[in-house]
């Protein structure tokens, strides 16, 4: 089962390698991992997308909590939540493809943020499925390069992950 784990961790050097080292040492999967400081710069927030049975996810949560610098751990996929990922795609944009790319950008509510006479850079935000759909719709022959940020997640409504 796919899970999205959010955690607050002290913003210290080496914090990221403690978390990633834990996953590799114990053989857990990481699908994506994003990290950046929060509004309180002494803390970073991480979003980890992982897969595993209920037993494994329980162990992952416990092992993360055991890390001395980890302040809080929540499996936000246990209830209603929002996931967003940012993708930048550089596409070939010549001839009739130039108009086609613009149209696709509008349909997916993406934005063209860089233009040359032969290419566009398109910015798109959404959940994983939307980003995958966009790539599928354009087709591999026109894609020059893609970069994805990995997922950021947040709980819906009153649920707040805070100190």
């Amino acid at each position, binding site marked *: 089962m796919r899970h999205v784990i959010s955690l607050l961790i002290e913003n210290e*050097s*080496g914090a990221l390698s403690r978390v990633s*080292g834990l996953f590799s*040492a114990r053989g857990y999967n990481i699908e994506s991992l994003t990290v950046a400081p929060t509004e309180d710069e002494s803390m970073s927030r991480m979003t980890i997308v992982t897969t595993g049975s209920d*037993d494994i996810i329980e*162990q992952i949560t*416990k092992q993360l909590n*055991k890390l*001395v610098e980890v302040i809080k751990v929540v499996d936000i996929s246990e209830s209603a939540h929002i996931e967003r990922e940012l993708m930048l795609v550089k596409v070939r944009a010549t001839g009739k493809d130039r108009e086609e790319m613009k149209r696709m950008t509008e349909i997916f509510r993406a934005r063209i943020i860089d233009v040359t006479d032969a290419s566009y850079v398109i910015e798109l935000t959404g959940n994983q499925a939307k980003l995958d759909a966009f790539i599928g719709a354009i087709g591999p022959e026109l894609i020059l390069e893609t970069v994805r940020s990995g997922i950021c997640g947040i709980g819906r409504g009153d649920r707040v992950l805070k*100190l």
Partner: protein
Amino acid sequence: MVLSGAEIVIRCLQEEKVEYVFGYPGGSVLFIYDALFNQDQVRHVLVRHEQAAVHAADGFARATSKVGVALVTSGPGATNAVTGIATAYCDSIPMVIISGQVPTAAIGQDAFQEVDTVGITRPCVKHNYLVKDVRDIASTIRKAFHLARTGRPGPVLVDIPKDVSMQKCEFEYPAEVAMRSYNPVLKGHQGQIRKALQLLLEARRPMIYTGGGVVLSDAAEALTKLARALGFPITNTLMGLGGYPASDRQYLGMPGMHGTYEANMAMHYCDVLLAVGARFDDRVIGNPAHFAEEPRKIIHVDIDPSSISKRVKVDVPIVGDVNEVLHQFLQQLDASPARPEPDALAAWWKQIEEWRRRDCMKYKHSDEIIKPQFVIQKLWEVTGGDAIVTSDVGQHQMWAAQYYRFDQPRRWLNSGGLGTMGVGLPYAMGAQFAHPGKPVACVTGEASIQMCIQELSTCKQFRLPIKICNLNNRYLGMVRQWQELFHGGRYSESYMDSLPDFARLAEAYGHVGLRVEKPGDVEGALREAFGRKDDLVFLDFQVDQTENVYPMVQGGKGLTDMILSSEDL
């Protein structure tokens, strides 16, 4: 008061009431050694190899419940320490390791004796720090001691670059530690304890299984009270020996791969299992799928939530300090009129006594050749069961655990989790420093002892009257045993030729060496050794080469699938 970083390090150790630092100097820690030279409160023990420094500090911690402290230099000093750190980590031993590092400006430049110590040790410490500012030394060391001794204990490493140890700042030792990310739960949940107690009182076939956590949290007294109040059978793991008196009738011996028949059968066929400070290790329960086949309710008390429901599903988890939780159990039991059902308990004990009658620890004595088990039995007799016994890793470790009956905690020091050969002698050093007047025996083998034998020199320098009992069978005994049983008797690289004459080697270091070849001489040799109160005596027992450790549960097999003797093969 303005002090240098190095002086601050030593002042911090003084504030923590550290009696001994085990270490080895080198370029990056020269200023710290200089600060050490100018005081006499913290005493330094110069070892002969950094691995032994960490093991000795670890042994000191195991024998006392204080935090062990080691000091090593950068690069090879730190890498040599890694085996010791990992050993302590696997057994949750409270330790602080201070390592030197190249100057901050040289970090990342592939400098002489530079290694990423924080990176290398990260997976085998409870936590570690690289101190980049002299103003952070005092608070970091304060935190290191706090982390090492609280919660689930473990080693904490503090890496200090040379320039940081030279810089100066105002020294003040923080009185308190506040860490928003670290607050271990100590008290158990009263409701869960009530639930657990009810299960225990209604059990028809109850069993208590305890591990190293009981020793680490100094809970032997509370455990003994509870076990006696309930009248239940009890087993202590390899790490938990001495948690409950081994000579008591309720004690069934050690469980697991080389555990007793009665302990393993009771573990498997009980209907309620109370696990305390133990972690259902693969060497204890064998195959977890086989263990789960028999229905039983499991109550698990542990300070570390990640140990609960890791290898077996637990019905009543109780997170908390073992000693604290056991006292809560006792209070609730005192307040309740309910007691275990006597008839059910009597029937269960009848069954256990039947298992006990198999006498699984018997072995064939010989008048010609020394049996290793016999040496341990005599060691127990000669020391009145009151020695601190350390061991290395292998057959001799199992025989010591099986045949020396530990009635008290912190008398048995061995590497249970990592299984590190070479710990025996340094552990004995740490224990002897901790308890100068007490008999300390190191049970070892001719292979293990050679992994840290250079420490005989340290023992001479500090006049440590350790008694080394070398069970010399000229084989890597446990490897040989597995090759005999599971590899068709192909003894690949397990025979050791060209061994030194250990008695003469000990004499070369300035100690007393005795070679013992006949069973009739074993007791006399032991009495002579323990009679020499001021000397280290190296007893080189020539033992039966082909003796195996039984009972045995083969790796991956179920706990009840035991080989009781060579006749079962």
